[in-house]
């Protein structure tokens, strides 16, 4: 009882000589409840707040951050169009990567041993090669295959084209990002599909629903519940992963920032420009992820939890109702 300041109402220890009345429930209901005080929590919170304040103070006062340079560049045309390219690379690589990944996932799940093995080998290879190595490989594709063509396998070629003309630098970056992403997406999609109760497929099969429709309408929407959190991670990872294509001199965000500070020497504020954009874009993606996940959670809960917006609106409404009411609001369900 070291930390409580008030004696517990039922404490019968001590050297009280006067005879005590037996406490009955009626008496207890009238007593005031003193909540436990968490001194440790307060101290920890204080320490963390001091450290945070110190850091914020440094951000504002340390001249090395050069916030005026940050302000001059963060919305400049060069940077904004570089952000556009970063977004395009992310979007295309996400769509292509997850499309190919879904195909690979179902190949691995199929009963056809050739498809299974090929999909397994693809995932094994592309997870083994660092993305940067792969990107440089695709960049140098023309050294490996000078011309790409269509024709009969191992037979005559009807139509062919110079590899560099067909693919180009951005194309090579996109292929690299997508193929890399597909290997990871395949495993994420496969994980989602095998998490769906087998009874769902059996019920769909028993109803005679065609195979493709079973997958599209019954399995995938339920698999999405398990796929989305990891897929969100992957897309955010990809957004930042696009910065690796700077090795191919593609004008995405990180490459442009490097070009600018290489010219003017303001390294720190320009790195902050890139940081701010990556944080902003990741935040947008995180919010989008929340709402997409919510949509696929339909039917998973008896009553879906309110969104942060709905919660804020409810709180506001309660505040207004409380202000209009003269009597103090009583908490529902009594004391905790």
């Amino acid at each position, binding site marked *: 009882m070291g930390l409580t300041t008030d004696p517990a109402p039922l404490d019968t220890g001590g050297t009280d000589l006067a005879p005590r009345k037996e406490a009955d429930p009626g008496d207890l209901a009238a007593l005031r409840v003193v909540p436990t005080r968490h001194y440790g929590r307060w101290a920890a919170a204080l320490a963390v707040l001091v450290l945070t304040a110190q850091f914020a103070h440094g951000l504002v006062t340390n001249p090395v951050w050069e916030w005026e340079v940050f302000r001059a560049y963060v919305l400049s045309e060069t940077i904004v169009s570089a952000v556009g390219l970063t977004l395009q690379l992310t979007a295309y690589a996400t769509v292509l990567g997850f499309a190919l990944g879904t195909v690979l996932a179902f190949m691995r799940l199929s009963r056809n041993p050739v498809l299974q093995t090929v999909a397994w080998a693809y995932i094994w290879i592309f997870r083994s090669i660092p993305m940067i190595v792969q990107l440089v490989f695709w960049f140098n594709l023309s050294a490996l295959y000078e011309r790409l063509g269509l024709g009969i396998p191992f037979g005559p070629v009807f139509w062919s084209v110079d590899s560099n003309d067909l693919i180009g630098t951005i194309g090579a970056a996109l292929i690299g990002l997508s193929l890399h992403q597909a290997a990871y997406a395949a495993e994420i999609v496969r994980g989602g599909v095998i998490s769906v109760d087998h009874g769902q497929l*059996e*019920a*769909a099969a028993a109803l*005679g629903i065609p195979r493709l429709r079973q997958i599209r309408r019954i399995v995938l929407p339920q698999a999405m519940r398990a796929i989305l959190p990891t897929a969100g991670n992957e897309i955010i990872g990809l957004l930042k992963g696009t910065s690796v294509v700077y090795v191919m001199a593609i004008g995405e965000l990180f490459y442009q920032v490097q070009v600018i500070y290489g010219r003017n020497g303001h390294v720190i504020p320009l790195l902050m420009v890139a940081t701010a954009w990556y944080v902003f874009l990741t935040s947008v993606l995180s919010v989008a992820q929340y709402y997409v996940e919510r949509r696929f959670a339909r*039917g998973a809960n*008896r009553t879906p939890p309110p969104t942060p917006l709905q919660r804020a609106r409810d709180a506001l409404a309660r505040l207004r109702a409380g202000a209009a009411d003269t009597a103090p609001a009583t908490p529902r369900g009594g004391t905790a």
Partner: protein
Amino acid sequence: MSQVMVDVRGVHKSFGALKVLRGVDLTVRAGEVTALLGPSGSGKSTLLRVINHLEKVNRGWISIDGELIGYRRSGDRLYELRERDILRQRTHIGFVFQHFHLFPHLTVLDNVVEAPVAALRRPRKEAVATAERLLARVGLADKAGAYPRQLSGGQQQRVAIARALAIEPKVLLFDEPTSALDPELVGEVLDVIKDLARSGTTMIIVTHEIGFAREVADTVAFLDGGVVVEQGPPGAVLDAPRHERTRAFLSKVL
């Protein structure tokens, strides 16, 4: 006598070394209700699952309304059907699972509408009208917009029955439809099945509810060790079993 709807002949089924069915014969006529009884592990559920080809038989054959299930006969050979054709055959067979297996991400209405639209290619409007009629029949017209997890177990099983009826099957198979339910919810599901029996739906019901089997079944078949040990009207099998194993089973469950 009415025509034969379900004909099971000499069906064997093994899972690895485990022989579950060892030559089952069963005949169900149109409009008849057959209750399958038997101790656990006797092969009741497996028999139901081979009837709509969720499991392939190792030997023997099954036909529904004269159509061989899972195979096509040509001369002296049986050709395995492609999945597409098996799926088409399954639209003649309704199946109600012990654990309902409703689609949790679809509303009650969409659960019932899905198969008529996807498997039978009915126009959605027509399928919705049918679904509403069927939901009313199982007493859940007001739940069309709810999701399965918002319903009680008994309500979910009634939706599952409506879903199975929506493909207008020639025969309905029930795999222990009330075993996963709280005792007080069993009655509402049994009432729906009784109503179907009165309207002349052909049904095969695996059940542990002996009283229900007596009331609703035209035929009771007792399975043990992968064979039909005894088969006949409920009065005969349940009250005057001829076979020792039937007597032993009934003395335990009654």
